């Protein structure tokens, strides 16, 4: 295998959090105005840096962007190709609608096996819509790969990957042999933007599309039917409304304390 790396980067197509997001009928998220998840840009950047340090695509490295989602999710792959990924894999099938982490990790693990001979799977720390952080650990469990998660730094030396993981009580150095699953935080790097050259180059890059049958899965194993959790009710939280706003005229600190006292907070 030499020094080159074949890296799969997971990118999710998610509703843009800059707009109001809504949960519609059947407790499902409405997927309009979607983008490549902001937190997965860090995963893509980490993969590109590892590839470029080894001579990039020309030297035989590969950064394959993988998404599971609606037909529209191809837009997340296109963005990843413009930013610099070598190729894309799109898992899409009507049967996948309503998948929870269990079903998502099942389908994504099957796709990673189908891609084959992968050295690294790199993901974001959480999807900005599901927000569970379950998928990376579930992929590691399903693929029997070491898990190096919540990485705020990542180095690969030969066949050894080393991360820093910042916890509340300590900051740990963690290492494992490749192949491995890595999830990265927003502390790890500064993601790049697509440039003109990248946008042009992306037009020639390939996206492979898989349905669940291509991955050896049955409809009942994925989607809402294959999921092991269900959302029974979703209610919008009443939006917070602004309260009293005052302008400091020299005594705002005192008025602030009056407010806390009135609220019985002191």
């Amino acid at each position, binding site marked *: 295998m030499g020094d080159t790396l074949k890296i799969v980067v997971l990118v999710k197509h998610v509703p843009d*959090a800059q707009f109001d*997001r809504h*949960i519609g009928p059947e407790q499902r998220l409405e997927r309009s105005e979607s983008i490549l998840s902001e937190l997965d840009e860090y995963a893509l950047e980490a993969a590109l840096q590892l590839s470029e340090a080894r001579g990039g695509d020309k030297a035989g490295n590969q950064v394959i962007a993988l998404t599971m989602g609606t037909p529209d999710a191809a837009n997340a792959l296109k963005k990843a190709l413009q930013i610099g990924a070598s190729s894309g894999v799109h898992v899409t099938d009507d049967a996948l609608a309503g998948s929870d*982490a*269990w079903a998502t*990790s099942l389908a994504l693990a099957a796709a990673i096996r189908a891609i084959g001979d992968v050295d690294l799977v790199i993901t974001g720390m959480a999807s900005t819509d599901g*927000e*569970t*952080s*379950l*998928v*990376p*650990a*579930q992929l*590691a*469990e399903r693929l*029997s790969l070491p*898990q190096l*998660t*919540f990485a*705020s730094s990542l180095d690969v030396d030969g066949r050894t990957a*080393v991360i820093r993981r*910042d*916890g*509340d*009580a*300590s900051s740990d*150095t*963690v*290492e*494992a042999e490749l192949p*491995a699953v890595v999830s990265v*935080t*927003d*502390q790890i790097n500064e993601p790049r933007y697509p440039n003109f050259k990248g946008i042009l180059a992306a037009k020639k890059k390939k996206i492979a599309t898989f349905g669940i049958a291509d991955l050896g899965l049955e409809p009942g194993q994925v989607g809402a039917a294959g999921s*092991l*959790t*269900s*959302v*029974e009710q979703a*209610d919008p*939280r009443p939006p*917070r409304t602004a*309260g*009293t*706003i*005052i302008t*400091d005229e020299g*005594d*705002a*600190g*005192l008025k*602030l*304390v009056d*407010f*806390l*006292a009135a*609220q019985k*907070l*002191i």
Partner: protein
Amino acid sequence: MTASTVLVYLDVVPAEGPHKTQLELVAAGRILGPVAVAVANEPSETAVAQLAEHGAEAVYTPGSADLSDFLVAPKAAWLAAVVATAQPAAVVVDNSFEGKEIAARLGVRLSAGVVTDVVALEADGTAHKSVLAGSYEVRARATSQIAVLAVKGHAAEGAPAPAPGAASVHAVEVPGDAFANAARITARAERPKTGRPELTEASIIVAGGRGTDGDFTPIEELADALGAAVGASRAATDAGWIGHDFQVGQTGKTVSPQLYISAGISGAIQQKAGMQTSKVIVAVNSDPESPVFEIADFGVVGDLFKVLPQATEEIKRRRG
């Protein structure tokens, strides 16, 4: 054990007894049924006695096996072995990064649904959580035979059980393959303790942002006068003014204290994601157009270097 036993997983329990948050997790388990506890280290007699007093009927340990040098995977493998012995209907873990990951792997091993970020539980297993950065409240449940639930602090108040008995202690062997493909922890730098409450446990938080210009003194002094935790925006942690573990928001901590005082923070969507479920929000910002004022119950347009010290002095004066 009856079929409705709930297994509560606790990471390392100190020799002098479980932390307050660990007892809250045991109490959360009691909402669902009789509780057994799995402790990732060998617990002291004092710890076992306190767990029993809080309702644990059985305590499972990995014996003398050390699970602490590897990341997540062996703990999940061992917990799956405990589940095979204890046969619970649900497993409750804490909602830390590691807790969620243990839950994730356990879910795959047990073919069990996992619900994370649970803020409240009902006896029938219904879990309450907020989603989409706090904009929706949902009721969710695991539809599998066993449910795995990652529960946040304050979901239940830690309290002695009405009629506690003694807890039986069982060593469950760590499966032989638990360390295969596990990532090794090769170095550990402990974080210094601040003496202030933990962000996720605190009932009051005073948070500072770029507006502090690197000087957190007024934030810390107000926090100390209120017995509060200190928090920060990502602008402040990125600048290196305060550790990343103090960051509140989408990629930091999600908090919902009784009172959140935001000072010199503009209130970007990623910051709001971590604090907008706070009971009461107070904002101090020199810019009246700052979005933080849209969600503040009480806002002061002013200089935090004037307003905060004055408030701190006034609190101290009133307390005499």
